[in-house]
């Protein structure tokens, strides 16, 4: 099957080294200590973290570190055909274990002895790369719960089809049977915490594919941090930052932040709770933003408020 068109585009219109759109939201489960929804294109995952709390099973209690538990489930409606999935099948047990180990590596468990942290992840929409999306969602949820971590672990997958390395495989590409490399990465420490691969690859190709997946992880980390970097930049005003109120999108009133770095321009769209980078921003839209200009600082403050800082 042809996975890359002669024009060099993939089945869903992406270029080989392009990621799907990322979207994240935290604080989605009110009763949980921390929670997040993470979307990579059509893959959508919800994660909830409870704890640190008293260990349920006394026999499992550890006197020097916290017990981390993880449960991965797929919603019945997450795939194309609606199937009832038995709980605790081989696949979900394996992924639960993978997520648990990845998270355990970055949580500072030694600070919370004799307690337990529960991570629940559920796939709401499956379109390839659920494992990566789950890890990203779990990271965000743990950060939301205020659990001390060494670093924000991020994950991304990459594959190799039609003699091309592809970043962030979707379901069709995933089920082609080619190699699928999932990498979990600690961006600050520059360390790999998870590496999984289905099927085989020549060694030199593997290196490029893994490099690609690592780059993907860094991109995810940048996305997670994007909000943060923007705010960090703000006080030092060598960067010109213009903020417009933006409500062209009828459904949702949005804020738009236009950051002019010395070299390049960035447009960010903030709809109060999430932040997206806008590409293909037409010049007319920019003008309409300028027209609707409001007091910049006020909006940034409001935005901070929305972020919970």
């Amino acid at each position, binding site marked *: 099957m042809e996975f890359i068109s002669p024009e060099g585009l993939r089945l869903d219109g992406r270029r080989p080294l392009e990621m799907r759109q990322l979207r994240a939201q935290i*604080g989605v489960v009110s009763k949980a200590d921390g929670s997040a929804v993470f979307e990579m294109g059509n893959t959508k995952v919800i994660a909830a973290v409870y704890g640190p709390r008293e260990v349920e099973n006394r026999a499992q209690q550890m006197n020097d570190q916290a017990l981390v538990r993880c449960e991965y489930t797929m919603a019945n409606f997450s795939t194309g055909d609606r199937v009832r999935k038995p709980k605790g099948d081989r696949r979900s047990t394996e992924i639960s274990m993978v997520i648990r180990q990845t998270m355990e590596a970055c949580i*500072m468990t030694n600070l919370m002895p*004799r307690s337990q942290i529960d991570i629940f992840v559920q796939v709401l929409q499956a379109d390839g790369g659920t494992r990566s999306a789950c890890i990203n969602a779990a990271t965000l949820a743990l*950060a939301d719960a205020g659990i001390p971590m060494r670093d924000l672990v991020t994950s991304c997958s990459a594959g190799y089809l039609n003699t091309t390395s592809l970043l962030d495989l979707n379901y069709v590409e995933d089920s082609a049977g080619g190699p699928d490399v999932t990498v979990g990465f600690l961006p600050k420490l520059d360390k790999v915490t998870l590496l999984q691969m289905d099927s085989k690859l020549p060694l030199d190709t593997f290196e490029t594919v893994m490099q690609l997946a690592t780059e993907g992880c860094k991109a995810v980390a940048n996305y997670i941090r994007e*909000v943060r970097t923007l705010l960090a930049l703000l006080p030092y005003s060598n960067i010109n930052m213009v903020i417009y109120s933006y409500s062209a999108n009828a459904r949702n009133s949005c804020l738009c932040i236009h950051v002019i770095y010395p070299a390049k321009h960035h447009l960010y769209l903030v709809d109060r709770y999430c932040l997206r980078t806008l590409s293909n921003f037409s010049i007319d839209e920019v003008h309409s933003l300028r027209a609707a200009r409001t007091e910049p600082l006020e909006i940034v403050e409001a935005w901070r*408020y929305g972020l919970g*800082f």
Partner: protein
Amino acid sequence: MREIELSLNQTQKIRLQRALENLQCLSSKSAANASVTVADTIPVNNEDNILKGHGTLELDGEVVATVCGVVDRVDKLVIVRSLRSRYKPDTGDIIVGRVVEVAQKRWRVEIHSNQDAVLMLSSVTLPDGIQRRRTAVDELNMRNIFVENDVISAEVRNSQHDGTWQLHARSDKYGKLERGQLITVPSYLVKRCKQHFHQLDQYGALLILGCNGYVWVGELTVAKDGMEVDDVNESEKTNANSIGEINLEENYTPLETRQNVCRIANAVRVLAVLGFNITVEVILELCDLSTSLNLDIHDMLGAEFCVAVAEKESSHAKSSELLIAAIASELCPHSLHTLPALAIPVKIASSSECSG
């Protein structure tokens, strides 16, 4: 990125957003600048040797945050205060908890912390104030005092070497809580202050704001200890005492009191939804606001009331900042700010900590 979970229509959404923005504008900006996320480098001068406190980690000579929060510096000590985490007990905190286990000479109490706390039998006063005899029979009768699932109020005593916290209930004001409801809110919304027990005589209700985020609203039965509880005049107290003794067996709460309890509880819930600090002044103000708007108790949890509260608080904050009224009226097109303002100026969301 924390969304308020309410189903709002478009106007309500805009009004709420505007009110929250106003509040945020007025809050301290310095704290917001000091916020960090996980794995952010905290800038420090390398010359002076820095002490790394909670929420920090040393990595290649850099000080790195391990939680999302606000950086605090005390001399050479650098700590990151986490914005949202479970309750961290501290000696002297007044808390509300739930008994989960009756064990040897002790109860285990769930206090929404990392671990369950321990309440020793030796650190409670018996309900009727009689001296306890340390006998085996006495230990067998522990279930007469508290059983599983009882809600109790207590004070944090100290921490054991293994990290568990001990409670004590060595006063008449602590003990089993009955005839009321327990509301759980995020613990960072309740600030430590002098007074956590509040007797709301006009509502006939007892309000306990536990430091661990457990709020108790119940019927005000016996004015327990005149020394500890605040502002009850003498005659009422003796009155309540005698009535309380008569009604001890009778498990009946008048409808009006039950309604009042629900109203106060809903006020707490609204504050928790909006993420505002929970203090007795604000709660009473919300109760007054809801009655003056002629709202039914169940309507208090609706979107409209939430928006109204947010607007009121933002207009309050505005006026306390001594801004001109004209601006306030322009910013709050809704007529709420014309309501009789309460005498107590309300501080809401004034620190960045409560904005989560």
